Each structure stands twice: as structure tokens, then as C-alpha cells.
């Protein structure tokens, strides 16, 4: 690494009404360096990269690129200066081909034929096989990410920003991505890598900057620092690891026999012949890459989609044709992944959102008439038990931060004493200490005899809380394996391997 940094940020400050998102943040990245940006949700990582990418203007501080002033007014200027960014959420049109999607994002797009040629070259060079003629709607999440990466690489970036790139990948796909990134780094492209996943950062990154509440609280060399130390720097306190007592599982609570169901949405994944049993007191962890039937499985269990008789048995009763309300009354509670709009109504108050699923079991519905006083008390109980940060239950769900709303949504179901709790991405976007609290709540439920199905894309989380593990791939569920002693490789194979990717020809 030479002495002039590629990017030099000093004293960057950005305030929003009521919150200082970045407070005097300084950061240097050398050419070819893989630099990790670490921090909890709300620590200011997104604001910082948005400033580098020209989406947000800093209130104070300056940025330098190659020793010269750098103040992109808009993403176009940042791209021209050699900054590329791969967002966590893809901005692709399902109905268009790969080449058409990439052409749409370019300033002076060449003819499609020439562009397709260049896409092939770049994908060959970096081991990201991708046919330019395929329709994006048919691609897996990993392949979609490749489209975004290739889109950036075509601009020949000096700095590539990647926001949580591995959340949609299998371990094998992650390994391939890392090979590509290392190759880029060896060619002198610097990479600013944002992630929660500390083991990944330890494997990939040369250095790390840790943000907390908008300030830089530390630097470290990830390969020489333990994941636990990094996590504690992020949170600022000592972390508690969820604990559990050993136990023997009880009776079968839920039995799925050949469960198949069409997906309600056009680009969704149908469920195909799922067979599994869950017993009282155990946690079944279900992994898998996003979009392989997780939402559909939750919907089939919650009663949002009905299934043929004989496929779902709860405590011995056939419940496939029952809707959500009778299932809740029996003790099957669920928490979907999408918080706003699915698990909660964004513009409604927390009291109303407590009513949303609490009506039957919390006795809030008396012969059709709703008891709003009791609903409010229930909402207050969730808020205090799960430490939801909000002025009160009268506030709209959308006014809560993602992590706080997640605590509310999980708390709402946990407090209703489920016999079977199904959660999808229970700690997605939640800070480390709150995530630990949610996992502990799930384990406590299991301890008290409930059966838990935890669907998640966070393998570390699943390994931490599951007794048994299975993976969803293309709507099929793998046979379950005891979670203890499973290796990352084995899990990856259960998740469907590398989905046809190959390792970069380095």
C-alpha cells in the first residue's frame, strides 16, 4: 500500500432533524484495500456511504480522492470519479433481460450487442458467469447480485462499495464472491465492505472501521481481532450469549406431510412436498437463500394460504383448511419477515397493531366488539417487556425504527403464549443486543414447552438457537440434521450448493 490514500474522509458530519447520523467521521482507504465498515443499525454506515456515493451532502468535513478534493453532487459524479456501489436491495426490472437492465443504468450505453459482449468478457474475467440475454425475473438472488456487480465493474471503478452483499448467498456463493473481490483487490480496486457478519469480515477484510451512534469508535485488523471483540466494540457493552438448558423434546406438535402449495405471487416459489415434524420444546432452524420458499412456508403455516387436507397436522388435528384466526386460537402464532405492511400495518398505531394478531388469544374481541382499553394495555406490555423504544402505544408503527418494530412484532407473538411459534428472519435489521434478547426469548419459549420454527438467512443465528436444522431450496425442504456439529460446508450443500456458480479463474 502506498502513502497517498485512494479515499480520505476527514471530519464528515451529517445531521438529520433529531439525530446526528455522522459526527466527525474520518476514514482512509488505500488502493486495493478491502476495508470493512462495521456498526449496528443506525450507527451511520448508510449515511456515510451515501455521502461517498453522492446521494447525501455532508454538513461539514471534506472528502479527498487521490489527494484532490472530492464532493460528488450526485451519484453520476461519484461514478465518473470511479466509485461503484452495489446496494443491499437490487434495483432491477424483472421483465427485462440482464443486458437491458445494465444498459438502463449507464449514461452512454453502447448498442446492446456490444454491451452483451462486454458483459461476457467481464463475467469471464471475474468468474461471475451470467448470460446477458436472460430475463432477470428468472434469476436467483445470487445471480441478480452478479448483475449489480457486473454493472459496477463495467464502469471500471477505483472503489467498490458493497452493502451487506452476502445476505442473499449460500456459503459456497459467498466463497465465490470473496474470490472475485480478492481478485479485484489484487488489481488495485479498493473495496468498502459493509456487513454485520463478523466472521466474513475476518476472512476477507484488511482493516475495519467501527461506527457507533455516528462516531468512529475504533479501528482494528479483523484477522487479528476476535468476532466477539468486534461485536462488543460495535455495541459498546459486553454481550450476553443466549443460554439454554439441555432438555428432551416432548410430543410432536406439528407434522407436515407432503406439504405442497402454490405461491400467491407471480415470481414466488411454490412449496414442493415438504415433510417434517417439530416436537414440543425444540427449535427447528430452517436456512436457505432468500426466495426459496421461506415466505410461502410461513404463509402455509399461518393460514394465509390454505392447503389440502392431510398435509398439516397440529397436535394431531388436521388444520390445512383453517384460516389464520382459528389457528391462532389453537396456539399457532407466526411472525412474518416483512415488518411493514405484512406483520404490521404501517400507518396504524401500536395499539391497533397489537389488536391485529392479539384479538383472539388476549381476549380483546368480545363477541365482535373490540376492547381497545385491553389492546392498549397489551401493547404497553409488549413495549415494556421487549424494551421497544417509542413514546407510547398511540404512535404509528412506521414511526418506529426497523429494529424496534421487530421487537414489537416478535414480542406480540411471544407474549401470547404460543404452542407453536413460526418466525421468519426474527432478528433481521436488529442491533446485536436486541437480537440476543429476541433469541433468548425464543429459547425461553422452547424451554417452557413451545415448539419453535425459526426461518432465517443468518446461519450463525440458526446454529446458535436450533436443535435441528433443515434448509429450503427451490421450495423443497432438506431432511433435518441435528444442529450440533454441522459444518458450514454441509449446511451449504443442504442449501443447494453454489447454484451453478464457478470459482473465479484466478
Amino acid at each position, binding site marked *: 500500500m502506498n502513502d497517498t490514500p485512494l479515499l480520505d474522509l476527514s471530519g464528515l458530519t451529517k445531521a438529520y432533524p433529531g439525530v446526528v447520523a455522522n459526527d466527525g467521521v474520518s476514514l482512509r482507504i488505500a488502493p486495493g484495500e478491502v476495508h470493512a465498515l462495521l456498526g449496528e443499525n443506525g450507527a451511520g454506515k448508510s449515511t456515510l456511504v451515501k455521502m461517498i456515493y453522492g446521494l447525501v*451532502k455532508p454538513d461539514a468535513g471534506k472528502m479527498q480522492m487521490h489527494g484532490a478534493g472530492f464532493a460528488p453532487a450526485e451519484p453520476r459524479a461519484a461514478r465518473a470519479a470511479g466509485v461503484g456501489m452495489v446496494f443491499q436491495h437490487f434495483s432491477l426490472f424483472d421483465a427485462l433481460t440482464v443486458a437491458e437492465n445494465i444498459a438502463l443504468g449507464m449514461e452512454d450505453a453502447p448498442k446492446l450487442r456490444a454491451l452483451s459482449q462486454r458483459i461476457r468478457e467481464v463475467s469471464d474475467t471475474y468468474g461471475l458467469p451470467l448470460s446477458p440475454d436472460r430475463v432477470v425475473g428468472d434469476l436467483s438472488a445470487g445471480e441478480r447480485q452478479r448483475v449489480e456487480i457486473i454493472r459496477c465493474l463495467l464502469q471500471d471503478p477505483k472503489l467498490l462499495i458493497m452493502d451487506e452483499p452476502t445476505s442473499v448467498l449460500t456459503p459456497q456463493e459467498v466463497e465465490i464472491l470473496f474470490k472475485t473481490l480478492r481478485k479485484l483487490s489484487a488489481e488495485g480496486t479498493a473495496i468498502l465492505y459493509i456487513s454485520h457478519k463478523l466472521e466474513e469480515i475476518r476472512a476477507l477484510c484488511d482493516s475495519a472501521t467501527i461506527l457507533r451512534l455516528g462516531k468512529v469508535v475504533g479501528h482494528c485488523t479483523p484477522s487479528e481481532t476476535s468476532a466477539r471483540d468486534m461485536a462488543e466494540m460495535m455495541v459498546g457493552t459486553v454481550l450476553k450469549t443466549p443460554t439454554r438448558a439441555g432438555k428432551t423434546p416432548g410430543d410432536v406438535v406439528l407434522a407436515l406431510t407432503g406439504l405442497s402449495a402454490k405461491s400467491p405471487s407471480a415470481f414466488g416459489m411454490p412449496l414442493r412436498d415438504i415433510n417434517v415434524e417439530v416436537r414440543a420444546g425444540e427449535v427447528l432452524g430452517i436456512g436457505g437463500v432468500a426466495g426459496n420458499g421461506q415466505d410461502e412456508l410461513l404463509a402455509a403455516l399461518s393460514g*394465509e394460504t390454505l392447503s389440502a387436507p392431510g398435509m398439516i397436522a397440529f397436535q394431531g388435528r388436521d388444520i390445512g383448511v383453517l384460516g389464520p384466526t382459528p389457528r391462532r386460537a389453537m396456539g399457532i402464532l407466526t411472525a*412474518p419477515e416483512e415488518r*411493514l*405492511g405484512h406483520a404490521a400495518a404501517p400507518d*396504524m398505531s401500536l395499539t391497533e397493531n397489537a389488536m*391485529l394478531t392479539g384479538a383472539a388469544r388476549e381476549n380483546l374481541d368480545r363477541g365482535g366488539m373490540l376492547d381497545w382499553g385491553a389492546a392498549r394495555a397489551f401493547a404497553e406490555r409488549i413495549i415494556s417487556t421487549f424494551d421497544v423504544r417509542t413514546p407510547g402505544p398511540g404512535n*404509528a408503527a412506521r*414511526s418506529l425504527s426497523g429494529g424496534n418494530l421487530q421487537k414489537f412484532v416478535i414480542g406480540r407473538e411471544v407474549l401470547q403464549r404460543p404452542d407453536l411459534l413460526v418466525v421468519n428472519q426474527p432478528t433481521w435489521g436488529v442491533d446485536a443486543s436486541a437480537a440476543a434478547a429476541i433469541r433468548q426469548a425464543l429459547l425461553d419459549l422452547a424451554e417452557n414447552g413451545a415448539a419453535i420454527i425459526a426461518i432465517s438467512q443468518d446461519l450463525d443465528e440458526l446454529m446458535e438457537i436450533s436443535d435441528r436444522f433443515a434448509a429450503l431450496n427451490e421450495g423443497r425442504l432438506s431432511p433435518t440434521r441435528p444442529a450440533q456439529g454441522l459444518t458450514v460446508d454441509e449446511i451449504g450443500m443442504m442449501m443447494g450448493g453454489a447454484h451453478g456458480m464457478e470459482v473465479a479463474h484466478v
Partner: protein
Amino acid sequence: MIRLEKRPQPSRAFSLATPLLAVLATMVFGGLMFALLGKDPVTSIITIFWQPLFGEFAFYYRPQLLIKGAPLVLIAIGLSLGFKAGIWNIGAEGQYIMGALFGAGVGLAFYPLDSFIVFPLMVMGGAFGGWIWAMIPAMLKVKFGTNEILVSLMLVYVAEQFLASMSLGLMKNPEGFGFPGSRNLQQYESAFNADLIEGSGMHWGVVAALIAVIFAYVLLTKHRLGFAIRVTGEAPRAARFSGVNPTRLVLFCLGTSGLLAGLAGLFEVAGPAGQVTIDFNVGYGFTAIIVAFLGRLHPVGILLAGGLMALTYIGGDIAQSQLGLPAAAIQVFQGMLLFFLLAFDLLTNYRLRFGRTEVA
């Protein structure tokens, strides 16, 4: 540079102030329009808003307010339930006509029987007529996924053809010297929806409208079904997740709005209108859509909005006859009211920011 920024929470103050701001803005810009037409804006506005209530002939206009306001409120209450859930019944006009035809049909069938039972049966007939007409788009929607907006709207024109056919054929007054139109129900005591207090304009339709307001208020604030309606409108997936059955909700909302529109038609044909004629319907079913939104889909708001709308109708008529304002200008004036309401409504969920732009 002005830009809109989403509020973290809907503003309660603005949600209450919006209708008032809209009325004020309509007065200002409507006055401007009247001025451009060469009329004195102040006089015009006073004529429209003041004369019917407190002017010299208010004793005549006040009952008219109830007569015009009641069907608007009754229909709008029904529509608002569906609108809140994102179920769009645009065909209340047709349901209103069918309610009148079924109700009047029952009454005419009993003619000249003198019994207290006739009017209640007519009310049931009217309710059934509106309900069944609304169940056509409802069933098509839940069975085949058709768009209820198009189907309900087109059924208005079918209902109008029925109306013409009935007044020229089956329901034509046999003692009417060949004129189109049914017997006059005002002259058939058992069927006549008379003023409950002579000369007050207070007929059964007004009572029904008030009951509907209370019913809707209790339903929306206290009952499971009203909660299901609100959640469905706010977040359909969350509603499904909470256990709302969308099919039943479509049937309930379209059915109820049709039923109330049918009742409005029956009370009109048996009362103020008196007979089934080709031009029986005057657009209450469409104006009620405006009333529902003007009242912010809230039962009490709709009650006030219905009154306001009736006021602009009657005031507009007075302005036409006294000041010679063109009818089109009055319609533009009413249109302005809806336009400003929707425009100001934005401020409930967004606030204006003045200053330099920034992409967030």
C-alpha cells in the same frame, strides 16, 4: 425549491383542518372565477353559503337541505365503508335506481291496499333492490376477479335503461292519460314517505341517514368488522395475516353500500319525487362519492359534508336564478371543492420543506 417530506406520523391537526382549508380555498378561487364572469364575488359566495340557511326565504330552503342532504349522506356512508377497504363501488347511482324501482314496485303492487305494512315492505324491497344490484359486481369480483369499478359503473347505465323501460311500460300509471311515469306515491297514503313533522323536510330517509351515521361510527371504531375494513385499506397483506377474509369483506362492503343506496332511492321515490319517471335519478349516487371523500370517509365528516354539498346545490340554484350564474360555473365550483380537499389532504401525511434539494 419546495419539496414534500413524509411525516413520521399522520398529522391529526391537518386531518381536521383540511376540510376547512379546502372550503376556504374554494371560496377564494370560486369567488375569483365568479369575478371573472362579471359577478360580484362576495355576493355570489354569500348567495351560495348564506341565503339557504339564513336568508329571507330560508324557511323554504332549510327543508330542501334535509331532502337533498339525506340521500347523499345515506349513500356516502355505504360507499365510505368500501372505500376505506379499497373496494370501489362507483355504481351507487344504479343501486339507487334499482332500490327505487324495487321499492316502488312493492308499493304499486299493493295499490290501493290501505295498510301500515305497505311502507315497511317497500323499505325492504328498496334495500333488497340496491343490495342485489351491488351483488352483481361483488360476485363477479370474487368469482372471476373482475374490476368492481368498471362493472358497477356500467351497471348504472343498465339500471337507467330499466328505469326508462319501467316508467314507459310495466309501472306506467294506467290512469295517467298515456304520460310516462308511475302512479304518484304521494297520493297513496300507505306508501307515502311523508314529512314526519309537516313542512320540516324530515322524512324517513333523514332518520335512516342519521342511523347509518351512528351505525357506521360504531362499526368502524368498536367492531371487529370495522377494524378489518380499516386494516384492509391500510395494508392488505397485514389484513390477510390477521385473518381477514377478503372475499367476505368484498361481499359485505359492496352489499352494504348497495343496500344503503337502494334505501336512499326508495325514500326518494316514495317521498320527494313521488313517482318513477325516466329522469328520476339526478346524480346523487355520483355526488355521494365526492361527499364520502369530502367527509374524509369518516361518518361524522360525511354527515357534515353531505350538508355542505346540499348547501352548494341549493345555494348554486339560487345563484343561478338570482344572479344568472351559468350552471357550469356552479359545477366548476363544486369540482374545486373536491380538488382542494385532495390537495390539502396531502399535508396530512406530508409536510412542505422549503430549501435546497437533497436526494435522501
